[in-house]
């Protein structure tokens, strides 16, 4: 299984290299290390979000509320910053993490305690969180001129020649890598996705683990809220509207099975990078950005066709029925 997983990510990596190669035939400067660093930086937020979504999907759940969480938390920190510019940025990041955690915990509690399917819960909170953004902001925008220079500048500051935003992405990737491969929680998350019934017999608290997973995706949503707002320097109700499906798309392209249990940190990162490269490349090779949506749609379908070949569909369905008994 492990070698098979590696196999899949190598293919995705190869696809990305080929993609970069194709783009540089039209626009040679694209493959410059400097430009690739820029692409990585542009894709950082999507990578972080995809990792948060990944842990949820691995447990056979889904979090559709991440983009709304991002929007709400972003508005909270932007308004805090506008009202009290003295609050230091690290404290704001902690606040963003906590707000995101609370929103994620609400999802998690509903899934854990009431056993409502996660797709229903997060479909509801998707609209609630975005609506709540309108309520706290009164529909007003927070513009760049209301944000403090630190608020905007923090993620742009260069450390060892690379922006802080990229470093945050690297840090999050490293944390998730440790979580998924070196901790009991990580093993539990995979186990629940592969076989929830067996996980119960193995002593894993399935409900509680799902709760934790939603707390993680919530914190990620909150962190991304600050990063998004300070990157695009505008906080409004429309921020990241519909972005939840981009996050899931990155996961799917990264080979994370929507049926749970299959997927890796590397896959999620590469899936996000794939989408990031496409959106960065279209303008420089003179293709209208309006093509992006159709291209990523085709990429999703292609990815799922290729990935599905390894999954034992029939066996899975029979297993599910055993659990139901």
């Amino acid at each position, binding site marked *: 299984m492990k070698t098979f997983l590696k196999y899949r990510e190598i293919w995705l990596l190869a696809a990305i290299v080929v993609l970069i190669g194709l783009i540089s035939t039209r626009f040679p400067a694209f493959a410059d290390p400097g430009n690739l660093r820029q692409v990585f930086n542009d894709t950082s937020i999507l990578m972080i979000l995809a990792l948060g979504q990944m842990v949820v*999907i691995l447990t*056979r*759940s*889904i979090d*559709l509320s991440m983009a709304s969480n991002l929007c709400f938390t972003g508005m909270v920190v932007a308004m805090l910053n506008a009202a009290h510019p003295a609050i230091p940025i690290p404290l704001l990041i902690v606040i963003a993490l906590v707000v995101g955690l609370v929103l994620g915990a609400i999802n998690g509690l*509903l899934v854990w305690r*009431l*056993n*409502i*399917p*996660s*797709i*229903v*819960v997060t*479909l*509801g*909170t*998707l*609209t*609630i969180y*975005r*609506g*709540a953004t*309108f*309520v706290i902001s009164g*529909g007003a925008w927070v513009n760049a001129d209301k944000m403090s220079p630190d608020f905007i500048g923090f993620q742009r500051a260069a450390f060892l020649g690379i922006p802080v935003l990229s470093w945050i992405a690297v840090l999050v990737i490293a944390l998730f890598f440790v979580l998924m491969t070196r901790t009991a929680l990580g093993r539990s998350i995979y186990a629940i996705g592969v076989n*929830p019934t067996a996980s119960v017999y193995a002593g894993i608290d399935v409900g509680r683990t799902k709760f934790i997973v939603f707390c993680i995706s919530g914190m990620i949503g909150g962190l991304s809220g600050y990063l998004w707002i300070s990157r695009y320097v505008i906080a409004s*109700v429309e921020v990241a*509207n*519909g972005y939840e*499906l981009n996050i899931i*798309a990155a996961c*799917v392209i990264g080979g994370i099975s*929507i*049926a*749970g249990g299959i997927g890796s940190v590397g896959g999620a990162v590469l899936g996000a990078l794939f989408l990031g490269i496409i959106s960065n490349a279209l303008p420089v090779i003179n293709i*209208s950005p*309006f*093509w*992006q*949506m*159709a*291209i*990523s*749609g*085709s*990429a*999703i*379908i292609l990815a*799922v*066709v290729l990935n*599905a070949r390894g999954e034992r*569909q*029939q066996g899975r*369905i029979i297993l*599910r*029925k055993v*659990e*139901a*008994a």
Partner: protein
Amino acid sequence: MTDVPAPRHIPDRLDKPFSSAVFSWEALLVVVAVAIFAINSFASPYFLDPYSLSDLTFNFTEKGLIAFAMALLIISGEIDLSVAAIIALASTMMGMAVQAGAGTPVLVLIGIVVGLGCGAFNGLLVTRLGLPSIVVTIGTMSLFRGIAFIILGDQAYKGYPESFAFFGQGYVWWVVSFELVLFLIAAVVYWFVLHRTSFGRRVFAIGNNPVAAQFSGVRVGRIKFILFCLTGLMSGIASVLITSRLGSTRPSIAQGYELEVITMVVLGGVSILGGAGSILGVVLAAFIMGLVTFGLGLLNVPGIVMSIFIGLLLIIVIALPIVWRRLRGGR
């Protein structure tokens, strides 16, 4: 679906005795609908006007039409997130046809055929290649709307013929709009198909246990394919209605409708895990969502705040029976 399904059973008979009907999901929805109706008529003096009530129906007829087909699809254990994108693509194709000088009948035909084609494409990917529908339709959702964006960019199609306006703006009799009549006819047809035909029974059987259904001689793949085609068809019809009502096409048309349609279906008591649900529930949920959005609209509540109520309604209505059962069960 991605979650572990709860145990279910198929009743031998669909008709329920009176006592269980009182405590059914539909009864809960009726209570909610009556309560919202009453609150609305107290809250705004304009609410009980027949013309206001007629306007109200436009809030749910188009989404409701799709919700019927989506209900069948979700009962069979699949889902289609691409319905709003199908609306956008069908509308764009109709817009192109208008530029080429097509008349109203051709436009309607194009809308319906594009919808059907998109649905068949989803169905083929899911049933022929055995792919999970949630992922396939996230992909086709980007693809269909992406094609609309490629064709239109930031432009818009206008200049639809005058006779075309009837579908979205016309009235059949007094305040009864064409859209409402179509919605009611579709409700009866889908009710009959789901609850009174062997096809409907097979849909339930597939949702409860696709493997057992397969071994019982149900052609699972073919029925699922038909359901995807139906969902595409209804999206095509909805596209005709919306395009006719708005009189223009932008690639962002009907953005976010897919989640509203699914909310409607789930609020209507259809199990997101498949295998259970009724058309009556979906009709009631459509009315409730229309009532909430319209009532709050009369009170000048912005659309985004209404969505909070819809979201809360969805979670509360689903959580209530669970909490109720726990309390009675002494847990």
